[in-house]
C-alpha cells in the first residue's frame, strides 16, 4: 500500500494524513518517543479497539451480537457488549421541518428529489411542485446496495454488518469511490436539476450515512417513512393554484363551453370553507347534477366530484371545505355521492347546445267548466298537466291566471254571474285555484257557453294590471260564445241565446292586444272540424295555435306555445350565471 493509502486498523477508513481516524478515533500517528516499544500492550489495545468497534456496529443492528459473531474480530464479554450498546448514536435530524421549509419555496416548475438510504439500498421520491397536491403523482425509484457497490457481501446479514460499519478487510477507498461514482450517476439520471434532500433512515450506519452526504447538502436522519412526511407536509400546505367549480357557460349562439367559478384562491390554507350559489338547468330531473371541483393551472384537472339529484331550475347553496391540497369535502347540498368518473368522462356529459329560457311568462287560462263528461275531464286534466310540467321545467318563470266559466242558462234559471277562479298567481297557487274550481254541472246549455264573460274579464283585469312580462292567452273550450244578441240569421244551424250581460266577444277580442296586453293566443277545442276552423271566434282566439283536445298533451302544448324548448336538453352541470373564466 503506498504511503497515503494506509487505512485505519480498526475501521479500515483510509488513514490519509490524519493523526486519528476520522471515523473511529484510533490514534494513527504519534510523535517519536524514546524507549522500548510495548508491542503486547499495543496489540491488546488494538484488539480491544477493534472488538469495541465491531461491537458498536453489531449494536447498531441488533440487541444481540451473536448473529454477527462470525464477523466480530474477537469474542466479547458482557461488559464489552454493554459498553458498546450504551454508546449514543448520532442525533436525529427530522425530515419534516426540512420539507416544510423547502416545499413551499419551490417554484411552479421546480421539482424536489427526496433521497432515502436504508438497509436495502437507496430510493428517491420525486415530487413536482405542480403536482404537489396530488399524492398519487409522486414517483419513486430505488437501487440496491449491491447494485451500487458489488463488492459488498452477498449474505444479507454480513452485508448489513458491512453497511453498518463492519468494513474491516475491505478496500474502503475503492468501495467509497465506487459508491460515490455510481450513486452520483444514478441520482443524476433521475433527479437532474432538482432540489435535493437526502435522509438517512439507518442512523449511524456507515455507508447509508456516507451515501446521504454525497447526495445532497440538505440532509436529515430519522427512521420514519419519507411518504408519511411528505403527506403530512402536503396536508398543511396552502393551495399553490386556485380551485373552482366546473360550470356550464352558454354562449350567445347557445353553444356550451365548460368554465369554472372560483371557490378557493391560490394560497388558501386547509380548513377553509367556500360557499357559492348554483342554479341547475331546467329539465334535468332525469339526470343527476354533477358538482366538480377543478383547477385550471396549468391545465384543467379534477380535484373532487360528486353527483346526485338536485331540483332543476332552482337555486342551491354549495359549501365545500378544503381539507388539504387535492382534497375537498362537500358540505352542502346533501344527498350527493362521490363521483368516480374522470374529468374527460364528466365533460362529455355537457351538451353541445343549451336552449335556455329566461323570459317570464304570464299565462292566462280560460277553462270551460261544463259539457259532456269526457271532454270536461280531459280539459282539466290537460291544464293540470301543463301546470305540472311548467313547474318542473320552467320553474319560477310562469305565473298563471285561471278563469273557469259556467252556464248562463241552467236548471231552468238564468245565471248572469258565471266566472270562477282568480287572476295571475305564482304557478303553485294557480294550481290550487284550478283544483278549487267547481265540478261539472249536470246540465248545460248546448249551443253556447259564456266565454264572452271570461274574455271580458281578461280585458278588464289585463288593462288594470301593470305587466312586465310576456302575456299569453290559452282557451280550453267545447262551445262557442254567446252572441251579444240572439241571432236573426236563418242560416245559423244552432242559434244561441244572447249573453245575459249583453257582452260581445268580438269587442273583447279586439282589445286583447292593446288593452289586455295579450301577445299570443292559443285555443284547445273539444272538436276541431272544418266548421270550427272557419268560425271567427276560434280564428281570433286560436290565432297563434288551434289544436284539438284529444290530440293535445301537456308537453306538446307547452312546446307549441313556445313555453319550453322542443328538446329538453339535459345538462348535469350548474349554470355559469356569474361571469366565469
Amino acid at each position, binding site marked *: 500500500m503506498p504511503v497515503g493509502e494506509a487505512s485505519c486498523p480498526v475501521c479500515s477508513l483510509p488513514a490519509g494524513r490524519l493523526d486519528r481516524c476520522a471515523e473511529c478515533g484510533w490514534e494513527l500517528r504519534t510523535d517519536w518517543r524514546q524507549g522500548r516499544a510495548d508491542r503486547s500492550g499495543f496489540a491488546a489495545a488494538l484488539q480491544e479497539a477493534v472488538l469495541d468497534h465491531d461491537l458498536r456496529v453489531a449494536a447498531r443492528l441488533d440487541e444481540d451480537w451473536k448473529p454477527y459473531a462470525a464477523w466480530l474480530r474477537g469474542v466479547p464479554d458482557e461488559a464489552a457488549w454493554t459498553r458498546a450498546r450504551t454508546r449514543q448514536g448520532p442525533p436525529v435530524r427530522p425530515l419534516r421541518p426540512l420539507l416544510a421549509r423547502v416545499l413551499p419555496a419551490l417554484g411552479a416548475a421546480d421539482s424536489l428529489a427526496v433521497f432515502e438510504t436504508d438497509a436495502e439500498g437507496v430510493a428517491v421520491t420525486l415530487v413536482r411542485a405542480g403536482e404537489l397536491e396530488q399524492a398519487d403523482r409522486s414517483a419513486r425509484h430505488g437501487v440496491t446496495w449491491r447494485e451500487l457497490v458489488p463488492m459488498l457481501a452477498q449474505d444479507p446479514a454480513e452485508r448489513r454488518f458491512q453497511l453498518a460499519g463492519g468494513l474491516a478487510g475491505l478496500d474502503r477507498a475503492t468501495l467509497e469511490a465506487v459508491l460515490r461514482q455510481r450513486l452520483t450517476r444514478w441520482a443524476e439520471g433521475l433527479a437532474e436539476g432538482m432540489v435535493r434532500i437526502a435522509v438517512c433512515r439507518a442512523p449511524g450506519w456507515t455507508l447509508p450515512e456516507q451515501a446521504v452526504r454525497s447526495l445532497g447538502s440538505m440532509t436529515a436522519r430519522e427512521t420514519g417513512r419519507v411518504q408519511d412526511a411528505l403527506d403530512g407536509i402536503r396536508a398543511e400546505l396552502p393551495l399553490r393554484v386556485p380551485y373552482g367549480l366546473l360550470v356550464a357557460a352558454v354562449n350567445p349562439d347557445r353553444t356550451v363551453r365548460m368554465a369554472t367559478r372560483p371557490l378557493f384562491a391560490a394560497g388558501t390554507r386547509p380548513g377553509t370553507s367556500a360557499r357559492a350559489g348554483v342554479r341547475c338547468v331546467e329539465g334535468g330531473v332525469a339526470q343527476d347534477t354533477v358538482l366538480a371541483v377543478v383547477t385550471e393551472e396549468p391545465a384543467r384537472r379534477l380535484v373532487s366530484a360528486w353527483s346526485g339529484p338536485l331540483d332543476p331550475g332552482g337555486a342551491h347553496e354549495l359549501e365545500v371545505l378544503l381539507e388539504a391540497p387535492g382534497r375537498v369535502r362537500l358540505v352542502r347540498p346533501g344527498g350527493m355521492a362521490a363521483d368516480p368518473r374522470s374529468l374527460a368522462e364528466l365533460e362529455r356529459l355537457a351538451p353541445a347546445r343549451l336552449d335556455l329560457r329566461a323570459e317570464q311568462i304570464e299565462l292566462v287560462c280560460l277553462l270551460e267548466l261544463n259539457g259532456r263528461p269526457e271532454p270536461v275531464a280531459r280539459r282539466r286534466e290537460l291544464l293540470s298537466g301543463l301546470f305540472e310540467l311548467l313547474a318542473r321545467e320552467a320553474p319560477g318563470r310562469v305565473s298563471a291566471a285561471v278563469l273557469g266559466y259556467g252556464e248562463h*242558462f241552467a236548471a*231552468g234559471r*238564468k245565471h248572469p254571474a258565471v266566472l270562477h277562479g282568480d287572476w295571475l298567481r305564482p304557478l303553485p297557487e294557480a294550481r290550487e285555484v284550478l283544483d278549487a274550481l267547481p265540478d261539472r254541472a*249536470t246540465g248545460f246549455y248546448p249551443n253556447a257557453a259564456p266565454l264572452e264573460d271570461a274574455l271580458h274579464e281578461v280585458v278588464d283585469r289585463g288593462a288594470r294590471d301593470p305587466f312586465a312580462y310576456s302575456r299569453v292567452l290559452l282557451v280550453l273550450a267545447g262551445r262557442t260564445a254567446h252572441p251579444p244578441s*240572439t241571432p*236573426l240569421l236563418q242560416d*245559423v244551424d244552432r*242559434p244561441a*241565446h244572447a249573453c245575459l250581460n249583453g257582452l260581445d266577444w268580438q269587442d273583447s277580442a279586439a282589445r286583447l292586444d292593446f288593452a289586455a296586453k295579450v301577445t299570443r293566443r292559443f285555443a284547445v277545442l273539444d272538436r276541431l272540424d272544418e266548421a270550427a276552423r272557419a268560425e271567427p271566434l276560434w280564428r281570433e282566439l286560436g290565432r297563434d295555435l288551434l289544436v284539438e283536445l284529444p290530440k293535445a298533451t301537456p308537453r306538446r302544448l307547452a312546446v307549441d306555445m313556445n313555453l319550453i324548448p322542443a328538446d329538453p336538453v339535459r345538462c348535469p352541470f350548474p349554470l355559469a350565471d356569474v361571469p366565469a373564466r
Partner: protein
Amino acid sequence: MSTPPAPATPTPPPPPDPAASRGRIGLWGPPASGKTTFLAALGLALDRGDFPWLLYGRDEWSNTFLSSHTDLLRQKTFPPATTDLSRELSWVFRGSRTIREGRLLRRSTREVVSELDLELIDAPGGYFIGRSQPAEPSRVRFDDDDDEEESQEERLYRHLGACHGLIYLFDPTRERTRKDSYDYFHHTVLQIARRSAARSGDRFLPQHLAVCITKFDHPHVYGPAFKNGFIDQTLNPQHFPAVPDDLAEELFEFLGEADRESSAVLLRNSIRRHFHPDRTRYFMTSAVGFYLDPDLGRFRHSQYWNVVEEEGDEGRTSRILGDVYPVNVVEPLAWLAETLLPRS
C-alpha cells in the same frame, strides 16, 4: 079557511135561438209540431188577452187535461209528449158574436151565443203516417180480430173528416231538419177528402183551415221574419212582434222558399189545392210566446227567444225561459168561429 096558493108554474126555458150555432174543430199536425203545448197555451192566452171567449172541458177528463197542462206552462215547463191515442178530448169554446137580422131597411144586429166544439184526439204525430211506402190496405176483418190500432187510426180520420174547421200546425224548425211536412199533410188530407169531399159545395174540401206556423219565437222563424220586414211591434203594449194577418201567408211562402230542400212549397201547393182560399187563413203562432225581460217589462229585441235547451246526462230537454205570452193561439179559433158560424 084559506086555500094554500097554487104552486108557481116553473118558467119554461127560452126556445132555442135559431141563430145560435155550434161548430166542430179538429187539431192536426206532424210529431213535435206543438199540439199539446198549443192546447195548453189556449187557457193562458185567454187569460192574458181580452177575448170574449170561454174555454172549458165538456167532461172531467178534458177539464183535467186543460188545467194540468196549463199549470205546467205557467211553471215554464213544457207539457209531456202524448204517448197514446187515449181519449177524445172535447172542449167548448163559447163566446158571443154579433149577427145581423132583418131585411133591408129593418136590418138590426144582436148578440148571440156561439159555441165551437173543439175536439182533439190528442194523438202523437206518429199516427199521421208520412212514410214513402203506401199504407197497408184494409183487410177483411173478423169478429175476433184484434183491430185496436186500425180503429184508432180510422177514428182519427173520421174525426178530422167530420170537423167543420181544422187547425193545422206547421213547425218550420222541424221542417228544417226532417223535411217531411208535406208527407204528413198529404197522407192525412187524402183521408179527410175521402170522408168529407162529398159534402162540399165546390171542388174544395168543405173544411175551414187555419194554418198555424208555430214557434214564431225561434230564431229560424223570427229571424227571417224580422229581417225581411214582416214584423210589426205596434200591435200590443209589450211591443211583442206580430205579423199582420194579411202577411202571414206571404211569410209562410217565404219560409218555404228560403230552403230549397224543404217540402214546405209542396205543402203550400197542397193546401191551396185542397182548401178554398176564402176558407183558409194563416197565423204566425207561438205557444210560449216571446221572452219578456222581467226588469224592463217589455220585449227586447236582443233577447227574444223564450225557449232554452239543456243537455244533461239523460239527454236534451227544453225549458221555457220567461213567462208565457202565447201568440195567436186564440185567434185561429176565433177566426174559425166567425167563419164557420152563420152571420145572419
